[in-house]
């Protein structure tokens, strides 16, 4: 689960995620009308790289605005990051455009294009996410920062709903929920470019797809999210929604077995203790770097470590939007690797995320 | 009635300098008096006070019976206009006026220019031998000629008193003598009283009476 909408349009006008949603695949891989926020979130490891590719579709208005070719009810935002695990260097690129034929758009099933956006300044190729040969392909380049990725995925395990029928609750409030599914193992191959050198890579990705209209409840200021791919063929997804005082407001998760069957975890089913600190110069936020995750009922005690400390994404397009999204290593009961996302840390905790979530 | 009476006239300038010191003088009508003295002795001031151009600091001045010290500036000016003619060392002709116009200036000032007055101008100029130059610019005249024009100007309104301040001072000896002679003659013809200031003993000798002004004090010459 990641960052969402930025607008103060009344959530009442939008469709809320409901438990009785009728899923159809692959159609539901494309964008949905009526929901305020939707994203496609890819993270993964390939060779010496860890990567993130995220596209957001942000609704501004439920009502169609008449009278102008520039009228748009939707913004498209993209975040892309690459960590060179060998050196620890982390690069982040972003795009933000209104939906407009020249600037950004999203597709409709069955056309291959799912969502696209014009590349950042100085890059002529657009960023896009398409459905090709039965799998996702995503491409992004930032010519100025000299990195690019062009990766294709194939489902290695069936997709998993992160809640009964995909409904993922975020709090005690009935409306605070999203429709959320994951592809916890995607075989990935393609190319990654860094500083002019092109690397052909293979690896493994995790994809989160989430859409909804009301994604943060009451006093929540941010969350910690974990996606871990364990060597015994299981995957673990956990998220913890925090309050301003640092206490936990809501927590939930999913443990996926070797065959892809999910077990939904409640707050009482796991505990996470964080330690370590890395302070970001750019944002002033102080992030933990080490977590102890235990699921006693499932016999799992895991030590999760950031593979590099400086994996923060700071947006320049949206003021006060920054979060830590980094590759992590797992040791303990089982080994593995994965990604951790930390949002709402630092002096502007919750401001951006607050809005309309 | 005397033409001019000075009774213990003193003149002190601003700054304290005493230019005339209790000067007493009586000039009978028709007389020709000369005042001799070195430059800076106050001769010009004496004449200025006599003409009513300047005012005495002390003492009284009578001009044809009129007490100058009782008149205001305007009164003195009008009296002067009527009764006094002036001749200066530097001639003081106006370069932008012709000879005839220079002579006629007092009439212009008095507002009495007329055909008759122009006749008088011509008459006076003829008298001094410059009738043929009447339309010329004064800048073309020699020193002596200029002074002759000045004499005509002084006589234009038939003043009863002529005051001449070093009339030959800017002329050479020969011309000076000629001009002096002319002046004396003209005054005689017009019946005007003449008081003239000079530093030349020779010219002073032509007068009926001579006075010496020395450091502001007037004494009759022996």
């Amino acid at each position, binding site marked *: 689960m990641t960052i969402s909408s930025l607008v103060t349009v009344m959530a009442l006008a939008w469709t809320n995620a409901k438990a009785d949603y009728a899923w159809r695949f692959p159609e539901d891989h494309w964008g949905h009308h009526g929901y305020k926020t939707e994203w496609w979130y890819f993270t993964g490891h390939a060779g010496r790289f860890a990567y993130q590719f995220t596209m957001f579709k942000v609704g501004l208005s439920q009502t169609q605005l008449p009278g102008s070719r520039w009228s748009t009810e939707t913004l498209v935002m993209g975040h892309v990051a690459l960590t060179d695990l060998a050196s620890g260097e982390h690069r982040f690129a972003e795009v933000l455009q*209104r939906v407009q034929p*020249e600037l950004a758009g999203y597709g409709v099933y069955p056309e291959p294009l799912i969502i696209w956006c014009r590349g950042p300044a100085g890059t002529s190729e657009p960023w896009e996410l398409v459905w090709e040969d039965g799998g996702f392909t995503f491409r992004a380049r930032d010519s100025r920062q000299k990195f690019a990725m062009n990766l294709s995925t194939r489902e290695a395990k069936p997709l998993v709903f992160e809640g009964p029928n995909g409904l993922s609750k975020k709090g005690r409030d009935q409306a605070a929920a999203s429709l959320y599914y994951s592809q916890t193992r995607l075989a990935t191959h393609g190319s990654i470019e860094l500083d002019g050198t092109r690397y052909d890579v293979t690896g493994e990705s995790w994809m989160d797809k989430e859409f909804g209209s009301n994604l943060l409840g009451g006093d929540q200021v941010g969350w910690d999210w974990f996606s871990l791919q364990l060597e015994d063929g299981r995957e673990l997804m956990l998220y913890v929604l925090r309050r301003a005082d640092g206490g936990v407001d809501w927590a939930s998760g999913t443990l996926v077995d070797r065959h892809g069957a999910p077990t939904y975890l409640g707050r009482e089913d796991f505990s996470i203790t964080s330690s370590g600190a890395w302070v970001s110069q750019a944002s002033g936020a102080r992030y933990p770097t080490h977590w102890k995750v235990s699921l006693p009922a499932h016999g799992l005690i895991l030590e999760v470590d950031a593979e590099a400390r400086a994996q923060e994404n700071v947006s320049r397009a949206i003021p006060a939007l920054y979060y830590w999204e980094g590759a992590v290593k797992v040791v303990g009961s089982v080994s593995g690797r994965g990604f951790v996302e930390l949002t709402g840390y630092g002096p502007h905790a919750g401001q951006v995320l607050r809005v309309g979530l | 009635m005397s033409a001019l009476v000075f009774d213990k006239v003193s003149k002190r300038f601003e700054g304290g300098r005493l230019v005339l010191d209790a000067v007493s003088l009586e000039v009978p009508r028709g007389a020709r008096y000369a005042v001799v003295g070195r430059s800076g002795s106050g001769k010009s001031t004496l004449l200025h006070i006599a003409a009513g151009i300047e005012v005495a600091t002390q003492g009284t001045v009578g001009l044809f019976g009129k007490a100058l010290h009782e008149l205001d500036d305007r009164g003195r000016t009008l009296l002067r206009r009527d009764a006094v003619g002036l001749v200066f060392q530097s001639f003081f002709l106006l370069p932008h006026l012709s000879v005839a116009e220079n002579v006629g200036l007092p009439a212009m000032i008095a507002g009495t220019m007329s055909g008759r007055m122009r006749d008088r101008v011509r008459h006076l100029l003829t008298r001094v031998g410059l009738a043929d130059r009447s339309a010329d610019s004064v800048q073309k005249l020699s020193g002596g000629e200029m002074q002759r024009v000045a004499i005509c100007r002084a006589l234009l309104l038939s003043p009863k008193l002529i005051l001449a301040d070093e009339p030959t001072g800017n002329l050479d000896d020969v011309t000076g003598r000629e001009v002096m002679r002319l002046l004396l003659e003209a005054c005689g013809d017009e019946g005007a009283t003449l008081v003239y200031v000079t530093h030349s003993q020779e010219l002073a000798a032509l007068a009926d009476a001579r006075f010496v002004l020395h450091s502001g004090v007037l004494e009759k010459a022996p």
Partner: protein
Amino acid sequence: MVRYFAKALAAMVAKSPVLYVLTVLGVALGVASVVTIQLINDNAIAAFAASVRAVTGDDELTIVPTLGALDDSAMRVALADAATQTARPIVRVDALAGEERLSIVATDLTQPTRGPLELGAERAGDPLVTPGWIALSHELAARLGVTPGGTFTAVNGSRRVVLTAGALVDFKATLPLAPSSIAVMDIAQAQAVFGLSPGLDEVAIDLLDGADVLAAAARIGEVLGERARVLTPDERAEEAAGLLAAFRLNLTALSLISLAVGVFLIHGALQATLLRRRTELGVLRALGATRRQVVGLVIGEVMLIGCLGTALGLPLGVVAARANIDVVSGTLTNLYLLQTVEELRVPVWVIAVGAAVGLGSALLGATLSLIELRREDARALLVVSTLQESLLVLAPRLLVGAALLGSATAIFGVAARSWAPAGFVIAVTILATVVLATPWLVLRVSRLVRPRGFGFGYSMRSLGQKLAANAFAVASLAIAVSMMFGITAMVGSFRATLESWIGSTVRADIYVSTETRGRLDDDVLRTIAATPGTRASDVLRKGEARMGERTVRLSGVNVSLPGVPSRWPLLHAEGGVLEAVAGGGLLVSEPLARKANLARGERIQLRTLTGEHELTIAGVFYDYTTEQGTMVVDTATFVRLVGPVAPSSVALYLNHGVDIDATVRDLQRRLGDSPVVVRSNQRLRATILDIFDQTFAITVILQAMSFLIAVAGIALTLLIAARERAAELALYRALGATRCQVFRIFVGQGLSLGAFGLVLGAIGGAALVMVLILLINRAYFGWTIRLALPGWALAEQAATILAAAVLAALYPAMRASRTPSQELVRDDL
């Protein structure tokens, strides 16, 4: 020597403070006049440029359409270029909110702005989505009485919309010259709310750091081809400046003339001062002072006066410019639809120019005297009359010079018709001729006077006495009067021409239009059409076309209305013109015909949004509404060329006997809330003349300036004369002139100077009028103006000049009448 200088100077100033004050004032006025005009000039351009660049700030490149609007391809091309960082679409909308002008710039607000518009993250979507969302300056919001979140109505064309004040922004933080009427909207909102046609006014491009601007411009321009042009900020400013070129040129020319007058005045003032010092300087030389020391003294005094005068004149100029800036604004707004100039900025270079003028002309003024000083020996200096005599000798030679110059001017005027700046050259030579002829004229005419008494005649006669000083005063007055008369006569003629033109073109009974130069809605048109008692209605549509490199305005009207006489006074009255236009020909306005060299019968190529067209010119007509030029075609032709565009205004002809005012009121009532202006024939005529008067108000500044300068010149001259002619004045007193008489003589001198200056100025002014009307105006604006001297105005000005001359003479005359008799003892006259 320095101590001597200081003491001597202090003594002289103490003796005649008024004199020094006037001299310094003379320098100050000269400097101020230059500074004022330059500031106004500079600010006019800056305001225009600022309005053109507002909000988009310093984008490196702008794409502008050659015709109509840009389509999406412009965005695509801009985005596709490798050097582009961002490309922003821009649409400009002019609206009115009550009395307040809104200059709306609409752009894509999701693009990162470098400007002052920074919305917090949580409101980032508002501008796109909130209906009528607009960002205003604090001042504008205060004037409208809205707070953030509040709504207000605005009008564009005949459409009334509701806008929401979404944010208050300090635009001036990044664009100090941005007028407070600037407002920002998202392009989607602007287009939707105002019902604009799709298409962009501009695409603003920011390039990547270090990109080659010119290369990018060339690349993008090549792809876009004929449809659009790519401009750098300098080129945009130049285009703007080009629009204002004629206006600025005239201002500059006038400023040069005031500069000349100023220098003249400064020169004269210093000459007079130096003249008085000659004796003193002679004595110093006789006592053994070297030439260098004496020259040093002179330079010292001159520079001191120059510095004081400059120090006074610079702030004076700024104050004068500030006080007059709304007059200029009025002109700019009316003629060029610009923003008003709200604040005066004072760039350093203007101050530098002003200082250079002040000090430079002070030095220049002293140069002549210095040359003399260096050449002459000590004795010559003691004789003051030298300069007098030299001018007396020179006078005839100067006259010859004047005559030669005059004839050369005439020949030049005939020969160089086609060279645009010829008019200015001739104007300058006319003034120079007047100046050169002045000494001789003053000398000769004064000699002609045979004074009888000691009165005005004598005053005139004695003008020749101090020829140099008097000639100077007369000449400077003559120049000032020439300018005043010339400009007054030209403006008067122009107004008269305009009035008669209005008579033959404003023929309809009722005129309906919008306040913001927008279009009329269908509802409004229907309401107008339903006006009872209408005999005929003329509908005006406006568009644009390209003729070669030139963009021309195109108007579509109903050319032949039954029972309505022709509304286009033609240069060459011939038959069949209206039929030709109805058949597809076009009329060209006079300014355009002159500038583009067009004549009746010619075929021209016009490019419009619908393609290339060839049309025949049916005739050329007089038009004073704009100096840019217009073409008129019949409605059918217009639609063919431009398309079915909504009308901009409608003129109604009523049946005979119908009450016009009642019909106007009725129409206003039926139009109700629509922001549309209904005027009767009378009102429209009055409005046009009002605009004219407002436009030319700027000339009043120049007139006032010249007047002041001239009066100062007379006062100065007379004051100096009172001192220099002391001996002469003592002589008059000795010869029996009362103080009163001397006073009157002096006042008479002032009056004579005034009269001379007036007469010479009238001659110069007459010549100037012809030049202005026949040459300058034709070359730069292209209008025909018929000479019609505004008798009353000129007579009034003449009386004022004479009165001022007398006034200027009063104080000097008083000084003169107080001349002490000691002066008689001095040696010179």
